[in-house]
């Protein structure tokens, strides 16, 4: 839209300038006459009010300003705008990428911590289990050993008992023999049967 309005405006501008030229001409004329009246030097007047230069200035202004407008609007500004846009996009995409990376890092850290906690839990469980297993096995083994030992003790006791009984049984016989021998030495021969009955009598008496 601005591009359409532009040439129109420049044409209008020219027309307006033509109008204003007439007024400025009059100003310059009066100025020039006062200058001339005041002193003898050149009646150049004040250059910015010299209307004879207005046409050239306006023409060249229109040409150079118009050309600058076209160059700016068509080449320079779109290019700078594009540069800025590309940079903006790049910065935004980089930031998004960084954010994505950060999220991934966070996720990884979270997963790691979860796994660590799990592993710790598991290790704890295993230790607990092992300890329980070990103590159960030890208990069983101890019970077994104790049972074995008590059996052995019982056997041993039984054997002792048997030996003792046997020994006691033998003691009677030995005592009878000994008594018979003693009596034989002291009072003459005594039959084994007499000795045995005497011992028996003593033991019972």
């Amino acid at each position, binding site marked *: 839209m601005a591009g359409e309005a532009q040439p129109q405006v420049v044409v209008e501008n020219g027309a307006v300038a033509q109008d204003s030229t007439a007024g*400025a001409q009059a100003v310059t004329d009066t100025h020039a006459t006062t200058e001339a009246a005041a002193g003898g030097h050149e009646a150049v007047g004040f250059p*910015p009010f010299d209307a004879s230069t207005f*046409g050239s200035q306006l023409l060249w202004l229109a040409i*150079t300003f118009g050309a600058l407008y076209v160059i*700016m609007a068509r080449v320079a*500004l779109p290019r*700078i705008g594009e*540069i800025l846009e590309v940079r903006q996009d790049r910065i935004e995409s980089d930031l998004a990428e960084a954010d994505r990376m950060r999220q991934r890092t966070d996720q990884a850290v979270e997963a790691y911590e979860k796994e660590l906690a799990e592993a710790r839990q598991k290790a704890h469980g295993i230790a607990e289990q092992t300890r329980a297993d070990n103590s159960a096995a030890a208990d069983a083994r101890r019970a077994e050993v104790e049972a074995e030992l008590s059996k052995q003790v019982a056997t041993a006791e039984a054997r002792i008992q048997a030996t003792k009984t046997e020994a006691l049984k033998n003691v009677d016989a030995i005592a009878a023999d000994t008594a018979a021998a003693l009596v034989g030495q002291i009072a003459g021969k005594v039959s084994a049967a007499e000795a045995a009955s005497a011992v028996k009598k003593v033991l019972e008496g």
Partner: protein
Amino acid sequence: MSEKAIEPIHQFNIVKYFTFGNFGGNGSEGSGMEIAFTNSALFMLLTLLAASAFLILSTRGRGLVPGRMQLMAEMVYEFVANMVRSSAGTEGMRFFPFVFTLFMFILVANFFGMVPYFFTVTSHIIVTAALAVLVFLVVVIYGFMRNGAKFLKLFVPPGIPWFIIWLVVPIEIISFLSRPLSHSLRLWGNMLAGHIVLKVFGGMVVALLGAGAWGVVAILPFGMAVALTGLEFLVAALQAFVFAVLTCVYLNDAIHPGH
């Protein structure tokens, strides 16, 4: 000796390099319009070339990471773009190339004027008036094209009692019509006055140096000339900015009349 005295107006003289001819008029002496290639035209062409070369060559690389020149071009672009957007709204961005061209043309022309012996294009009222009238016509034509008769609401501020309206509307119309005048005179006056003052102080330095023992005093106007040169650079940029901002404000009226 006095004939060679520095004349502060001399720098504004239009010098014809060659003439194309006389157009219009009735053939008598002084009538019609002489079209010539002048020093003014030369510096308009230089302005065109410098501004175009700066913006096109600096962005030639289309660097993702800008170099110095490209950064400057981008800064000017964004500066003007922000100015248009903040003053005339997003819809005003269709006039961005126009405002940008105005800004660049005036800025470069003003800066060229700061180089000694260079001609200042914007020190001629006809140039600034043409630019101001161009802006005025764009505002009026676009205002009516876009809003039709509603564009006239521009002259009727809302919320004014009926008995004051008859006072306010003529004032609004006069202020609207005087815009191209103030718009053009501001730029022209600043450039003209600045250059005259610089020339006057420069002339004082030369005159004092030529006056024997009084030459010692020349340090004073010399210091003034140095300080004023700095000020004039500021004014050169500032006036280009002011011209562009006012253009944006006027365009805003064309886009959003009646508020």
